[in-house]
């Protein structure tokens, strides 16, 4: 699964989906791991390394990850805290736009109800809020990656 990273196309604050779509198409066609286009006109591409496994939520070779229907995974909670998982299929963004700061950083404290990321689905930017207080100890998804329903995105430690 190849990914098209187009974060910097959201320069004006509004996302140009036609361009994102086009970049995704180009990435797929030429087997590119990354396409990055900036408003200045600068374009950077990165070719996938042949034979190298590309980390992806949809890699059939990776064993099925547990996908909980709730944000709190009780079995894992004892040792790993609380997981914030995606409520639907979409694309994960850590900031509202490339110019704005990321919603949360590793090690940061978050409060219940605080926006931690955006999951874009059906052309809508959905702000995802934390369901509890805690410290961000792990960010499990990269900006621009696809997320599945129930996929863990952040891990928080509590107490």
């Amino acid at each position, binding site marked *: *699964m190849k990914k098209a990273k187009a974060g910097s196309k959201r320069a004006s604050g509004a996302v140009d989906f036609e361009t994102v779509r086009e970049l995704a198409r180009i990435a797929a066609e030429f087997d590119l791991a990354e396409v990055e286009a900036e408003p200045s006109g600068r374009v950077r591409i990165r070719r996938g390394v042949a034979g190298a496994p590309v980390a992806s939520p949809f890699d059939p070779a990776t064993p099925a990850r547990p996908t909980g229907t709730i944000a709190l995974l009780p079995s894992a909670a004892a040792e790993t805290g609380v997981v914030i998982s995606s409520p639907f*299929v979409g694309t994960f963004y850590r900031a509202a736009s490339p110019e704005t700061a990321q919603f949360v950083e590793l090690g940061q404290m978050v409060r219940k109800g605080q926006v931690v990321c955006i999951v874009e689905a059906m052309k809508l930017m959905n702000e995802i809020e934390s369901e509890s207080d805690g410290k961000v100890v792990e960010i499990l998804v990269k900006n621009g990656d696809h997320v599945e*329903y129930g996929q863990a995105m952040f891990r928080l430690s509590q107490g």
Partner: protein
Amino acid sequence: MFKKVLVANRGEIALRVIRACREMGIRSVAVHSTADADSLHVRFADEKVCIGPAPSKQSYLFIPALISAAEVTGADAVHPGYGFLSESADFAEVVGKCGLIWIGPQASVMRTMGDKVAARKAMSAAGVPILPGTGAIETDRAADEAVERIGLPVIIKAAGGGGGRGMKIVEDRARLRSQLAAARAEAQAGFNNPTVYIERYIARPRHIEVQVLGDGSSAIALGERECSIQRRHQKLVEEAPSVALDDERRQELLRMARKATTAIGYRTVGTLEFLLDENKKFHFMEMNTRIQVEHTVTEEVFGVDLVREQIRLAAGDSLRLRGDLRPRGHAIEVRINAEDPITFAPSPGVITALNLPGGLGVRVDTHVYANYRVPSSYDSLIAKLIVRADNRPAAIARLRRALFEFVVEGIKTNVDFHRRLIDHPDFIAGRLDTHLIERM
């Protein structure tokens, strides 16, 4: 041809489509609910996306999740399978608006055929005989007049229904009005459309259907299937060809089906369902605008991969099956359900041991395996057992042998029921009608 197809379904039919894609060199995307993470369709697809929790309404019937999954994976076409959204004209339209190809018919045709009143009208206009009946019944008086004209017994059907759901048989004139009210309420609850219509009721019909393929300008009819063995209007055993037809009746039926398919400009695979009455007259019942569960028996006797043809037609190819297509031998499919053989209640749970039959002329389409958990959220079909042999008696002998080898432990199934059914004298003699199971 497509580069990547998203399969908007689960279970054996999702696997069936994924297999066709792999053989055609097309990448496939499986979608699944959290309950289906370990299903074979997920394992054998090139990519997989979890689209929601177990309830179908939040996963396999949830259009935004399906479209989003197609977008993030870069799929260029959507195959709906059967059931779920396969006959949703709305979904077909959304798929098209998102720049994806719908592997199925035009939304307008789906809309017409999905409305049974409109379908009767369209088929009648194409020269297909329909049962004496009515358009939408608006008033009690209209129902009275219809019964006067058609004669009892009649059947009240939901215009938005199909697949045997939402029907009321009226044998007693005094109960017409109450049955009509009940049918309307059920139609509203089940199909969100209270419109009903009335047809003559045939007490002991055969259910015979024709497999058709069209490319918009021409069409072929790929033989018939006999699906008379049903329980509560749900098919359990299907075979091809039907023993009820001589060659002359068969050619007449196939000609009629081909003509109707061409007339509506049909552009994919589909099925025209007919009732054959006691006087061997055909009556159109409904058209299924999708691949069907029992497409396999047609594949076996004609040596055609129907899902492959369906994908080719969606990609804009024209029909390549031509001329005098004749079935070779006889094929029978039995549906293996996870259900209590006495009460027919679903029997979900873990399959602790499994032996699938094999050998010459035996095909099993299934998504289950040993240690697989049959989820309680979906229908109970766990496998389709299909046999082919030179003739019907040989096919029954092979089916008996294959059922002998079919072992499922840990859950209840209808394997034993099928063993008894195929030894019933009426089944062996080919005296089939939709009430045979009630006589067992």
